[in-house]
């Protein structure tokens, strides 16, 4: 197959044919290629040339000069003796072709073919190039999409091609009128992808680079763009671990690349290195492209920071031409996706009574269930349960009183239907010498937990100016301001965590006292020693925390083209953020075991971060007769990050009127700190391809970082990749079904230094003491120094294949990778007799291996179109070496040790006892190993080490959060003016340690439990479901140790988004004098299929490689339904 490549150049204004040739121009060149002269004429004369890129005459070097010559004369002179001639096609279009083809054509019986070319939305396509197959005869469609072409024979075949659309062949077979519909191809091979410090033609890419299908995410009503990327890119895991408005999800590329250093990818926005929180500042409308560099060869140009992959975000730039304005508005509402099934007041009463009685019977000889509270010992008060002794209405023995118990559905009291609205306005345009794009946005989102809310104001201006013929300067500036009303949703109820309090408090616990002030379970707790669980409603209303974030991302650059192919670019970036939080807990807040009035506490926190980066890049590309194509660049970069924060807390407030610290009697604590780090880098890259067929790429970066000790600051990160476009080979031409086949291989090294700012120093911490009330400064070594600390290295091999079928109507990308992280930056456990529990070292090795599949298909291309994109990724993570002795690392999260990292297993696996069942009866107990406190009805654990006792040594691997595979699929349909898009997404095979169940599945009766408590063991005759142990106020048998009882399947399949749009017909639009109007409805997170019992199967409260997948009560996800309108004018 020979790819005929046409370059079609459009000019800004229309000039009629007679005018074209009557224009006069003046040009003067010495020893330039003919094509350069054509380019110059094209620009000056505002005409467009259409010619075959391969024509040999175009490379002819010549001197050429005309002065005030007519265009036709100039062209005649130019093409003299070139073997080329020109032909005016009308419409300012001039076709340049070899003389002989016209001669041949002239001899034949000519046929005129006419027709219309439209896109899949039935809109006319102007400028589509049409070529007679096997010749250079061609034309292009006019402004209304029509064309007319004289062809040598009515049996010829026409080739239609247009940038952004799949090329199409049509055999005339005698027809003289021909209407053609072209299919848009988002992943057209002529597309460019953004790579480090430049762009690359998609067809020349040799690394594993994936582009986000932006059209699939445009309608998603998300306050953080990263959320919309979920399931869109093979190999990229996006985990929404909290539904808090604006929250940035966890992002990982190709598994966990590190144990204790950072695991999130580098984020680069328009060349500016930023943190992942930038996704909370961007609207999808502002983004032109997002490309993900996954393999080492594409990421190594970022050296020490590329080891977890790179996400390149390119914002929309202005284009010269007519000013375009666009307004996108949507509004909608959000609701919690599910509620948990907990016990009612009546069920709880029966359950709590059972728990108290069991504890009493277990521990007191001769005890009878009928014993009144007064007969039960007071030295362990949970032997007693409410029997009307505190309040007459609270009597678990009296069926009438039980039936009359109030039953607060605390989940209903904390959740709400919450509105969301977004306004995004943009304007772009410019002249030949200056282009601009300005956008402004406002997003207001209330959270589904009452009071939580976010308001976001954003502004962006991208301006590029051609200051001189060879000099372009540009500025991108993006200020934003976010106000968040925070609520304390996560964590222990004792710390006023809303979620666990709502699920765990007794359903009859009073919300208010008689005087209207807040009460809590503490009011009922004292005589029975129940936990004084905090009031979930008050936890919302009596905690005021406003978080203000001000961000300024800015970037300025200048590019000087010494020659068209030799450019120097200097770019400076400065990112400044200033955040403030004022938080106040009022004196009306019930605290753990405390009823109000309580001591109010307030705090004021502020932080400022400044990151600046300057880089200089010199790039050169050259092509020798289109056979040897070389692109090269060298550059330097310096980056400094400065951070400072201060925090003050006060706790002696006279009243709640003034909630800032000036009203506090004295500050309880005041602290401030400052840190910084700096990186200096040198890099180079060379790309070479032979006829676009054999592709080679080599890069190297040398980084120096202040993060490491003076002797180990510099590291070098080389990478190389090769590609072979097999379909370019002559022997492949006979396989027309295969339009593209590229084999790729890459190998490279990248680094990781995100391990704090000074991990190598031995720090001395403050440990004050007071002698006789006199405070004396105390200092003690708090960390061990390690001057040898250096880079964590990531070696990655990637093998990939890109396949295009049926004119690229179906394209498929498959990648296999092996990623070895070595010299892991590890906070190694050391024997504590050293005085330290851990030390920072470069030690250990880990691997991630996986397959990634991505497919795009244009299933139907007629009036009804149907496109599908889908991806599937497998990653297998394994720890290969650890620490000096290879000992496993145990890590704690919410309570005790919950995770283990050991050689041969995935990082951060769950660690605990394995539940076999429940001891049915005494006989079962006597014949099986058990804990020395176990009784019938308690949990039966596996005796892993076979020593006939159950103890700490029987703890083992009980699951892992890492899924077997993740997948996503989008189907887009359109018919006439209607479009529909459906995205699904999911993960399979990962598990979650639902640690929140230690609160609401502990069978203690101290707080409410999940309704699975109804399936508990009650007696040998009534053994329940064999999984839930007996109720017992004083747990025996180590029932509530971390065990497989709380490990759940975290697999899920979600309808991520459905959006339906309608484009107003042209007639209506024209009458309104608008460019386009689209109205749409979108449903985000519509439904999730999962067996997970808690709110969100993506949750991880302790985000980090060692403790992934532990749920300890987190802000649930919302289902969002919105209606929007998008107007272009």
């Amino acid at each position, binding site marked *: 197959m020979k790819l005929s490549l046409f370059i079609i150049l459009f000019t800004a204004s229309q000039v009629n044919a007679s005018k074209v040739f009557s224009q006069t121009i003046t040009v003067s060149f010495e020893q330039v290629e003919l094509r350069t002269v054509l380019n110059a004429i094209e620009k000056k004369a505002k005409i467009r040339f259409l010619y075959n890129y391969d024509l040999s005459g175009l490379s002819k070097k010549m001197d050429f000069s005309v002065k005030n010559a007519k265009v036709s004369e100039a062209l005649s002179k130019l093409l003299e003796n070139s073997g080329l001639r020109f032909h005016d096609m009308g419409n300012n279009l001039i076709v340049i072709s070899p003389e002989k083809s016209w001669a041949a054509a002239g001899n034949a019986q000519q046929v005129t073919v006419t027709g219309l070319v439209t896109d899949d939305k039935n809109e006319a396509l102007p400028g589509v190039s049409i070529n007679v197959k096997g010749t250079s005869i061609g034309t292009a469609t006019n402004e209304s999409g029509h064309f007319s072409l004289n062809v040598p024979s009515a049996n010829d075949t026409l080739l239609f091609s247009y940038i952004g659309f799949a090329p199409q062949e049509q055999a005339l077979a005698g027809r003289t009128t021909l209407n053609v519909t072209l299919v848009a191809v988002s992943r057209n091979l002529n597309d460019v992808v953004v790579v480090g410090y430049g762009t690359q033609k998609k067809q020349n890419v040799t690394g594993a680079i994936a582009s986000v299908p932006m059209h699939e995410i445009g309608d998603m009503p998300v306050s953080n763009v990263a959320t919309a990327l979920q399931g869109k890119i093979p190999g990229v895991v996006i985990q929404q671990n909290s539904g808090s408005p604006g929250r940035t999800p966890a992002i990982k590329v190709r598994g966990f690349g590190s144990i204790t250093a950072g695991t999130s990818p580098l984020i680069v926005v328009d060349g500016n290195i930023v943190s992942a929180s930038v996704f909370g500042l961007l609207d999808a409308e502002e983004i032109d492209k997002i490309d993900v560099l996954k393999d080492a060869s594409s990421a190594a140009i970022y050296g020490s920071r590329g080891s977890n992959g790179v996400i390149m975000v390119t914002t929309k730039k202005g284009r010269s031409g007519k000013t375009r304005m666009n307004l996108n508005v949507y509004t909608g509402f959000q609701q919690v996706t599910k509620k948990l099934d907990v016990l009612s007041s009546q069920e709880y009463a029966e359950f709590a009574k059972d728990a108290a009685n069991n504890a009493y019977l277990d521990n007191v000889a001769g005890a009878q269930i009928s014993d009144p509270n007064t007969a039960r010992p007071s030295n362990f008060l949970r032997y007693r349960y409410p029997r009307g002794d505190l309040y007459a209405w609270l009597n678990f023995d009296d069926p009438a009183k039980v039936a009359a118990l109030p039953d607060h559905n605390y989940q209903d009291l904390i959740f709400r239907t919450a509105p969301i609205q977004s306004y995004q306005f943009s304007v772009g345009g410019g002249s030949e010498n200056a282009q601009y794009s300005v956008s402004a946005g406002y997003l207001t989102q209330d959270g589904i937990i009452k009071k939580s809310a976010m308001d976001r104001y954003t502004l962006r201006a991208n301006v590029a100016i051609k200051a001189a013929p060879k000099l372009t300067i540009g500025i991108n500036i993006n200020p934003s301001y976010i106000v968040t009303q925070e609520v304390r949703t996560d964590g222990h109820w004792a710390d006023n965590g809303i979620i666990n309090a709502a699920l765990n408090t007794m359903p009859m616990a009073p919300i208010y006292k008689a005087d209207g002030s807040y009460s809590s379970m*503490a009011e009922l707790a004292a005589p029975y020693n129940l936990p004084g669980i905090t009031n979930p409603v008050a936890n919302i209303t009596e905690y005021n925390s406003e978080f203000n974030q001000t961000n300024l991302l800015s970037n300025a650059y200048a590019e000087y083209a010494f020659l068209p192919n030799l450019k120097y670019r200097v770019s400076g970036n400065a990112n400044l953020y200033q955040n403030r939080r004022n938080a106040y807990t009022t004196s009306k807040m019930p605290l753990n075991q405390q009823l109000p009035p309580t001591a109010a506490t307030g705090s004021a926190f502020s932080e400022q971060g400044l990151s600046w980066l300057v880089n200089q890049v010199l790039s050169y590309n050259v092509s020798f007769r289109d056979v040897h194509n070389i692109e090269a660049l060298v550059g330097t970069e310096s980056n400094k990050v400065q951070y400072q924060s201060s925090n003050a807390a006060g706790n002696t407030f006279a009243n709640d009127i003034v909630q800032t610290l000036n009203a506090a009697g004295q500050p309880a604590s005041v602290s401030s700190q400052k840190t910084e780090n*700096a990186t200096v880098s040198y890099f180079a890259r060379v790309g070479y391809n032979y006829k676009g067929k054999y592709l080679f790429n080599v890069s190297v970066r040398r980084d120096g970082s202040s993060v490491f000790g003076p002797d180990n600051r510099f590291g070098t990160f080389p990478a190389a990749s090769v590609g072979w476009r097999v379909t370019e080979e002559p022997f492949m031409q006979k396989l027309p079904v295969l339009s593209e086949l590229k084999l790729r291989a890459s190998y490279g090294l990248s680094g990781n230094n995100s391990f704090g700012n000074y991990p190598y120093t031995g720090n001395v911490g403050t440990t004050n003491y007071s*002698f006789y009330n006199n405070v004396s400064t105390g200092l003690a070594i708090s960390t061990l120094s390690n001057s040898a600390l250096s880079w964590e290295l990531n070696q990655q091999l990637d093998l990939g294949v890109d396949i295009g079928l049926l004119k690229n109507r179906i394209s498929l990308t498959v990648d296999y990778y092996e990623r070895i992280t070595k010299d892991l930056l590890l906070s190694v456990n050391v024997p504590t*007799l050293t005085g330290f529990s851990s030390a920072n070292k470069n030690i250990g090795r880990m691997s991630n291996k996986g397959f990634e599949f991505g497919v795009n298909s244009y299933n139907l291309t007629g009036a009804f179109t149907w496109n599908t994109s889908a991806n599937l990724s497998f990653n297998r993570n394994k720890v290969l070496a650890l620490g000096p002795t290879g000992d496993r690392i145990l890590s704690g999260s919410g309570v005790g040790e919950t995770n283990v990292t050991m050689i041969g297993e995935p990082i951060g696996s769950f660690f605990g006892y394995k539940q076999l069942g429940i001891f049915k009866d005494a006989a079962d107990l006597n014949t099986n190993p058990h804990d020395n406190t176990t009784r019938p009805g308690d949990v039966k654990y596996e005796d892993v080490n076979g020593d006939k006792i159950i103890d700490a040594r029987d703890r083992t691997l009980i699951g892992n959060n890492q899924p077997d595979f993740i997948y996503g699929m989008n189907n887009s349909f359109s018919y006439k003016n209607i479009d529909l898009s459906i995205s699904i997404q999911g993960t399979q095979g990962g598990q979650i340690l639902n640690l929140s169940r230690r609160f609401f599945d502990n069978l*203690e009766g101290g707080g409410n439990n999940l309704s699975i408590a109804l399936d508990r063991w009650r007696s040998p005759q009534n053994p329940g479901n064999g999984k839930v142990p007996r109720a017992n106020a004083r747990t025996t048998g180590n029932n509530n140790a971390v065990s497989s009882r709380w490990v759940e399947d975290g697999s899920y399949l979600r309808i991520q988004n459905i959006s339906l749009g309608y484009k107003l017909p042209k007639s209506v639009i024209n009458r309104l004098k608008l460019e386009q109007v689209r109205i749409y409805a979108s449903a985000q997170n519509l439904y999730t299929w999962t067996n997970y019992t808690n709110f969100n199967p993506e949750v991880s409260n302790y985000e980090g490689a060692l403790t992934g997948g532990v749920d300890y009560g987190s802000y649930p996800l919302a289902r969002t339904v919105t209606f929007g309108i998008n107007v272009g004018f």
Partner: protein
Amino acid sequence: CGKGFIDLKPISVITTDNFYQTEEDFRNAVSGAYNALRTGGTYGVDSYIFGEIRSDNSFPVASGSVTDQDEFDRFYIRTTNPFINNRWSNSYTSIARCNAILDRITPVAINDALKNRYIGEAKFLRALFYFNLVRTFGDVPLVLKEITNPDEGYQYGRNPKADVYAQIEKDLTEAAEALPVSYTGADVGRATKGAAKAILGRVLLTQKKYAPAAVQLKAVMDLNQYGLVTTAYADFFKVSNKNNKEAIFDVQYRSGGIGQGNPWPNSFAPQNSGNAVIMFGGGGNNVPTDDLVNDYEAGDQRKAASIATSYVNANGATIPGNFVKKYFDVPTVNNDNGNNIPIIRYADVLLMYAECLNEAGFVANGDAFSYLNEVRRRAGLGNLTAVEVPSQAAFRLVMEHERRVEFAFENLRWYDLVRTDRAITVLNGKSAQINLVNPVTPQNQVFPIPQSQIDINKTKITQNEGSN
């Protein structure tokens, strides 16, 4: 940009590169070592779990599934128990602070007297931490120098108990030489000669070295620095009366919301008591057993000073239940009280000395009786004589009782029962009251080595026999 650009040093943190160089650095380092007395696992927050909950004096907070303290109370302790791990790990962290001072101070130009005192204080503190370790675990690794390379940590195995005791005695003896008899002003509360000798007396007594113990204890008396607080037993514990003449060595605290406060008064007040017992409520820890409540003789003022058996809540209801009231303050912030925690006080010196005399030979109404009665009289009780206490064995039992009520909630009970070989008899005798899961065995007199420390160095660190 070059090397200078990336040569950045911490701005807000002191590092080892510029510390341990001046007199002031060492003054701060020594204060930092004292601070270690307060950490969990040593003599601060959780020390009652070892000294009291393990004994028949108290039981833990009512908690269903968190069995960490219950395991101590009812003798089914697990090797993963976090308090066990804290005692091991935090004791060694504390010891490392002392070792760093001792290793680094010699070449530094400091006034000799001061240098000597700092060395003495570091050795005194190191001995205190090792004393806890050896009483808790038996044989323990003896680390006597600063470890700067963590790999060295793998070289240490468990040293015999006797070696550890020998080192403790050596450190205390040298500390007693180096330390002053008393301090003034802002130095009051530091380790003194008397403190070193008194602790040495306790260390020797623990090893049943009665005669050498007696020598040390008598020497404390002969310093003429100390005496009982005679106004009332409760006065010793008053925040306004800290560092009184009976106080020999305390863990020092200070209230005021600056992170220097003692959590115990809040920790020991009943759960869900609101502000009825103490401002900011209670944690319900360290609940006195009825057995202890009933052990006080009629008229013993120490009972009311140490324990309450109920309180009246905000609604006026009387809520039954025992709780510790020995330590009480009016905090302005939760867990921020001004009370010191006594490690050794003069009443203990008197009673230990009496015990040594009795072990040397029973003398009816001899000196042992007078020291015992001195302590009893302060509690509002009458003298005991050879009529009530006719023999050496009877005197021992009287001492056992007297120490229990005198030092209740001062973390001595469990260690007293162990060192007198009475733990098994006494606790198994009350197994029903204290709900033992397993009967107390000789192996229970030490605790399991933390599982994490065995896991990390299996070849050198072995488990105590009988511990899982």
